[in-house]
């Protein structure tokens, strides 16, 4: 009888080990915010505003053939989004403080950033997130998607979402600009996320405009990243309560 009990105990342990821990992906629990060492002082914080200009004529957006998935085709015509330009300004440029924050530590938001798969397109195409902040990847489509992140410094992952409404939570642990996302089911779907250990980033919108606010006074290296045109950097000094203008010009 004792032997039988031992056998049961061993089997229980083996099954527990075999069935547990296979997926270290965080499914839904947000990570607790780390200790705030250097919160931004709103009395002295400044801001950085500017725009991203594009010189030259960008290639005309091409219609994407989405016949490989009837659902996607029914969502209407889709065009390539490599260069989204309005009023001479370039959208979808990730602008961030690359250097100058020293050892300052910033609170990590617990509110998830949402990456939606909607109309067989990633929404948003370019976005930022902080290390430790939850990323919620949502499938709003009535078709299958796989989310394949291919970072260099973080852990690669590839998850399938076969049903509408499915969510997948992920937390990046290391700063990395940029982490590409691809859907291997629909090879036209691409997105990029800039992962930073601070909140000072923005993505250029209409007219190429961007704004980074609540920036502590200091001298910073600002980098602008575009998916096709690479990066540009500039130095800027922000004084207390100062609002600086900064513009980048990408050339084709």
């Amino acid at each position, binding site marked *: 009888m004792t032997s039988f009990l031992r056998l049961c105990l061993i089997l229980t342990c083996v099954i527990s080990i075999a069935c547990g821990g296979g997926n270290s992906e965080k499914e839904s629990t947000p990570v607790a915010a780390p200790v705030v060492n250097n919160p931004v002082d709103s009395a002295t914080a400044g801001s950085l505003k500017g725009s991203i200009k594009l010189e030259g004529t960008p290639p005309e957006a091409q219609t994407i053939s989405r016949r*490989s*998935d*009837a*659902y*996607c085709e029914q969502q209407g015509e889709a065009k390539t989004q490599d260069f989204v330009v309005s009023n001479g300004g370039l959208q979808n440029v990730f602008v961030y403080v690359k250097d100058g924050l020293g050892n300052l530590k910033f609170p990590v938001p617990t509110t998830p950033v949402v990456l939606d798969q909607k109309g067989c397109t990633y929404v948003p195409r370019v976005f930022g997130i902080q290390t430790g902040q939850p990323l919620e990847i949502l499938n709003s489509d009535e*078709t*299958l998607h*796989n989310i*394949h992140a*291919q970072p260099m410094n973080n852990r*690669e992952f*590839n*998850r*399938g979402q*076969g049903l509408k409404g499915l969510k997948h939570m992920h937390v990046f642990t290391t700063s990395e600009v940029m982490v590409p996302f691809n*859907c*291997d*089911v*629909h*090879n036209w779907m691409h997105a990029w996320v800039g992962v930073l250990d601070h909140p000072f980033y923005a993505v250029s919108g209409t007219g190429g405009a961007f704004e980074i606010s609540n920036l502590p006074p200091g001298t910073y290296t600002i980098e602008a990243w575009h998916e096709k045109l690479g990066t540009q950097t500039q130095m800027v000094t922000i004084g207390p309560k100062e609002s600086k203008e900064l513009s980048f010009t990408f050339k084709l």
Partner: protein
Amino acid sequence: MLLHIYAVLVAISTAVLIFAGGLVTSTGSGLSVPDWPTTYGWFMFTFPLEKMVGGIRFEHTHRLIASTVGFLIVVLAVWLRLSEPRQWVRRLGYVALGAVITQGILGGITVLWYLPDPISIAHASLAQIVFCLTVAIALATSPGWRRAYSDHGAMPDDRILQAVALATTGLVYLQILIGATMRHTEAGLAIPDFPLAFGHLIPPTWNAKIAIHFAHRVGALVVTAFVLATTGHVLFHHRSRGELVRPSVLLLLLLAAQITLGALTVLSQKHYIINSLHVVTGASVLATSLVLTLRTRRARFDVGGTKWDRAGSTNRNPAYGPHGVEPARGRA
């Protein structure tokens, strides 16, 4: 004869599987199904057809064909076990079975590990071995092989031809390995023009991808030289031996098609159909060269009961002779 027909069908199925695998890589669909052996949580064979969209069509179809080929090879191995008197042929069946199982596992882990180059290249390379094994079994069970192609007298034991043909087969396989490396390291368009390289005979600039790509082009030249040598030798010295002339001519034709497809792959910016046809035609060149090589060595398989057939001397079928040969039809 039924076993031979079945073995030929298995070999053809394996070629179809290689084409399907080529489509997966060419369309970048390798990770469109993130899980394995399930498909989006479904048991592979119950995955709904209407959900086979985008890249899933290629990846899931590849898995279905692979499972079917795996099953066919299981049946082939069992069939050989039960009815094949020659031990070495039975062993080929076992090796094919082991290889196809390994191949399935490699295919699974390359998905689960996000297509690491070494695993993906190993998967592509082992596919050729599985194909060669099924072709070798089909050849060994063929009536012509069994009667040692004796319709026009004894097979010549031409050592030069044997050596050249063997070298050709080895070089074709090496060329396929380089091709698989090029394919999985995304070096297929590292040299964007053809037949020149950046407008020169030798690339004016180098990096790892250009080196792999250029090695594949040089490999094509070396293989061509050896195929011409093999074919020329057969046509000059063994023109009356249909069993040697036929694969030689076929080898030449397949090589011409393969070089054309290689050029078109570059010029079409890796169109996925052309690219996949290049993969399966490469496999056909290898298989044809293997058939020719084995036929040139046919005499070695039964002269005085070689180690091959001595190993199979425990005959299970009394209808066959001491070397696994149907007595009324020839030697082995």
